[in-house]
């Protein structure tokens, strides 16, 4: 049964890839990309990587699609087709692809338990993480505790990318109360407004659940951040930017982008000043296991703040630029 599901999913992935290559309308490419992400999330589910599946579904299929559609609002939606075909890039990509396949031949077989990656630190995480951190979800324990320095880097990447896009798109003259843009075509639709009003609190509640339940099940700051941002973006699409900016003011979301990284790095600095290693959570409580849970809560909160702030700020930046 698992094999059958895998064959179906991977075949559909290949079909979607070909469709993306052949599709000339960029709108179609974005939608196909969302389908690809959902298929990929399903593959991750089959592999029992639930956290990754959730991230792929919420980030890849959800918020990226919305942000790419916002980009398409600024640029042309037809792919530029060059007049003459250039052979150079084809040769280069075939050569790189062949090199990668050749290099991958030496990798251990897929799922090989004796592979170095499963023998290095993984056994310690699998056997010790419950007693050391008290967090049932192993992924969260690794992401926010054992490997929290890497996660700090990831959060910083989100922060830097967000800052970069905002710097590129921002205009000197901001018109805070300018006319509502023509892209808000769904505004004024009663059905959508009522539906959004009803669903918006539940989206935020679900984001909170994903955030705080990340210790016990799939979820965490990254997923919760994009889900919360998706709620605000939904309001922005249905009610217009002005209403959304009353819920999540532009100044606030733009300050949230660095604030989350500061919370994360500040958590590390606290332990540094207390005489321990950077991001060593032992200092937060007398009981070392409880202290690590407090630390995980802190850094996950930092991730949530940066990710949700960045996503909303990016959406505002794209739509404001389109005016």
């Amino acid at each position: 049964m698992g094999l059958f599901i895998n064959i179906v999913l991977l075949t559909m992935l290949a079909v979607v890839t070909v469709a993306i290559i052949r599709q000339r309308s960029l709108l179609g490419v974005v939608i196909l990309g969302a389908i690809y992400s959902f298929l990929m999330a399903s593959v991750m589910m089959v592999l029992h990587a639930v956290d990754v599946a959730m991230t792929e579904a919420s980030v890849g299929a959800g918020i990226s699609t919305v942000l790419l559609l916002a980009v398409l609002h600024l640029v042309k939606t037809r792919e530029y087709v060059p007049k003459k075909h250039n052979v150079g890039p084809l040769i280069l990509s075939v050569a790189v692809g062949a090199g990668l396949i050749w290099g991958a031949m030496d990798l251990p077989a897929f799922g090989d338990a004796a592979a170095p990656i499963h023998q290095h630190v993984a056994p310690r995480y699998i056997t010790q993480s419950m007693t050391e951190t008290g967090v049932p979800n192993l992924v969260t324990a690794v992401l926010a505790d054992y490997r929290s320095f890497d996660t700090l880097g990831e959060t910083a990447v989100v922060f830097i990318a967000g800052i970069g896009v905002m710097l590129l798109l921002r205009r000197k003259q901001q018109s805070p109360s300018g006319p509502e843009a023509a892209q808000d075509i769904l505004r004024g639709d009663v059905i959508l407004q009522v539906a959004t009003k009803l669903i918006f609190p539940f989206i935020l509640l679900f984001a909170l659940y994903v955030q705080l339940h990340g210790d016990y099940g799939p979820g965490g700051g990254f997923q919760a951040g994009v889900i919360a941002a998706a709620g605000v973006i939904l309001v922005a699409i249905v009610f217009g930017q002005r209403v959304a900016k009353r819920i999540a003011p532009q100044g606030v979301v733009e300050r949230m982008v660095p604030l989350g990284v500061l919370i994360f790095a500040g958590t590390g600095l606290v332990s540094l000043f207390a005489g321990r290693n950077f991001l060593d959570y032992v200092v937060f409580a007398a009981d070392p296991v409880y202290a690590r849970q407090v630390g995980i809560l802190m850094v996950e909160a930092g991730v949530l703040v940066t990710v949700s702030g960045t996503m909303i700020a990016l959406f505002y930046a794209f739509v404001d630029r389109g005016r």
Partner: protein
Amino acid sequence: MMSTAIDVLSGILIIAGSFFVLVGVIGLLRLPDIYTRLHGASVTDTAGALFLILGMMLQSGWTLVTLKLLIILAIFLFTLPVAAHALARAALHERVEPELAPDGAADGTDGDGEKV
């Protein structure tokens, strides 16, 4: 005996759901324009999802999974028709013309050739 009855019932529901998903996909592929295609696709959204999830709920018994499936069903039945509505409205806004029968060729309900 009880478990067999539940298995049979949930099997029937899942097959019914799959049937409606199939009908929706055929409609999506065969119908002429975006509005009728949306009509086809919403069969998948509502009837297909309804029967599939009811079938799955029978399989999961009185557990937390059943409650989660119920919530998913409620969200599906609530959001997917709204999404279809938003899509139709966006198409209308972009002035995508519905494909109408030629004047006089309609079957009497719209015999005066008036555009609906």
